[in-house]
């Protein structure tokens, strides 16, 4: 009885904290504060995972998100000193509409969840060997296995890394006369084809 009550109390505590911290993430004026609040949100969800006996997931959550990603964000913020967020004041109407939409969505979701019974698994998930089970499932190529999404995710991660590097890599200096968009007045005009010398020069530039 007491165990069950404390379970409920802890759940609501974690949940309420997660919601409050999420609001803090969105509303923080300084990037660093937002990052710290994000760390809190992620830790709270790790706590929820623990309560669900998903200890592996909780561990991953703390290791990867809290320990990895948010720490990286904090590093980036501190190293680049771009801690101030741009002040963005959306029109009041937009704010009101946004609030109405969010509240309506919340109401709909809560209403739905209260009215429809979810299919809770009859037997509790096995308490021990959670990690082993996940590992086996991920590499199982039989009927109940998840080896395919596991492999696809590895491809996705590789591509995300490559893409991140390419996008973040330092660009050549600006000031080239020609772009395909013609986003400035004079640029869209037709230019005669480049001479051979210029062509060679550019090739060298590219190779450097």
């Amino acid at each position, binding site marked *: 009885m007491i165990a069950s009550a404390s379970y409920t109390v802890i759940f609501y505590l974690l949940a309420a904290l997660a919601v409050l911290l999420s609001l803090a993430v969105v509303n923080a004026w300084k990037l660093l504060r937002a990052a710290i609040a994000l760390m809190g949100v992620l830790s709270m969800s790790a706590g929820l995972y623990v309560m669900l006996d998903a200890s592996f997931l909780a561990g991953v959550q703390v290791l990867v998100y809290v320990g990895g990603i948010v720490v990286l964000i904090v590093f980036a913020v501190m190293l680049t000193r771009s801690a101030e967020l741009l002040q963005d004041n959306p029109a009041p109407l937009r704010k009101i509409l946004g609030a109405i939409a969010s509240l309506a969505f919340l109401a709909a979701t809560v209403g739905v969840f209260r009215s429809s019974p979810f299919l809770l698994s009859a037997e509790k998930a096995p308490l021990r060997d959670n990690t082993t089970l996940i590992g086996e499932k991920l590499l199982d190529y039989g009927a109940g296995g998840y080896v*395919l999404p596991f492999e696809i995710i590895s491809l996705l991660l590789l591509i995300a890394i490559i893409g991140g590097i390419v996008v973040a890599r330092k660009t050549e200096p600006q000031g080239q006369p020609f772009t395909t968009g013609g986003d400035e007045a004079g640029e869209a005009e037709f230019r005669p084809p480049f001479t051979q010398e210029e062509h060679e020069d550019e090739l060298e530039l590219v190779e450097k």
Partner: protein
Amino acid sequence: MLMLPEIIVVLTAGVVLCLDLFLTERSRVILAPVTLLGLALGFAALLVTPQTGDLLGGRFGMDPIAWWFKVIFLIAGFVTVILSMDLLDGRAAHRMRGIGFRGEYYTILLSTIVGMMFLISARETITLYVSLETATIPLFVLTAWRRDHVQSGEAGLKYVIIGALASAFILYGLSILYGLTGQTSIVGMSAKLADVPRPAFWLAAAMLMTGVGFKLTIVPFHMWAADVYEGAPAPVTAYLSVASKAAGLAFMFQVFYRIFGSELAGWTPLIAAFAAVTMSLGNLVAIVQDNIKRFMAFSAISQAGYLILGFLGPADNGVPAMLFYMLVYILSNLAVFACIVWYSNETGRERIEEYRGLSLTNPIMALGMMIALFSLAGIPPLSGFVGKFFLFSIAAKAGYNWLVAVAAVNSTISLFYYLRIVRQMYIEPIYEGAGTLPVRYTVAATVGLLSLAVALMGVIPYFYETIHAQTITWLASLIG
């Protein structure tokens, strides 16, 4: 070896990435041919693999519909590589900064193709979601590829945010479904769906619809399309406008026909409303566009409106009609984009009125573009008309005569704005001193073949008949 095409494409991505390490900038031109070869091999593998069967304990399935979708994805990828070649290896690349990194570019492009191919073969929701992400996330990077260009970066950022939002909706919907049924496999989910409490089911369905609406650019989830299409490098825009839309349709097929099954029946008024709004808004906004990429974005939005007419009817008519239309649409749109990419590479011009005189300088390209535009407008006997006709007839059969009338009015409007481009190419005076622009033979052959296919597929009933026959067997397998 059911997964052979996917494996070949993944291997090609790896080969391209590794080759890139060992090549000098000058010799990196061979990367595109390698990519093309990989895709061609994948296509050949697709031709020899059996069209039905499954792998990995039923987690990966192959069926005739998936086969056709894979054909669509591979064709789209192949043409996109040819177009990218014109941008990345051509003269334009030396004029523009920040368009390099060819090895990475092709690797990323190949991986999104693979993602799409897995998407249509997925048989459980986790694979489904993961492949959807694999198909989408690389596109964010490709959109932001032109780093000399602030619009490209902006487009990439917009696409990331909207894409994440769409993914969140889809993920939310799928997890509700999992919560309700306790199944991740699509078959299991579908079997238990009848007992699921309705409000929660509607919520999940609405979430999935919203997410897929973003992918297919259904109004009101279309607002990202114009900016992203305009900012992305032109070959990427081409790919976005065809493959991303085909992937959206593939996802919709998975959700509607495999998961929801017969639950679909009551939704037709909603779909009809979405279709009407989408085609009308896309058309009306397209009229006032000036930039040809933005223009094609809105044209693509209205085409999506026609496309979902196919969901109004029973699957045995709707599926072949939508699949045929998708095939026709990607061929026509790619032909148009081939001309856009080539013209923009050669001259840097992207505004509609800057196409004037193209019929005099490059008559073949202008002709190909015109045929493709007329196909998009639905002029008989081009295939675009036949495809539209099938879709209209489904709406008419389902009793939505008002919708057919709306679609017909929209077709007329669309003819008006497609004619704008034709008029520029054929009537308006040529630029002073403009000569014939050089065309790579690869691009010329692409435009020629695509427009020929567009013209012939309307007259030769083989494709539709095949798709139709295969759909029947596919549906039988779904039920059985």
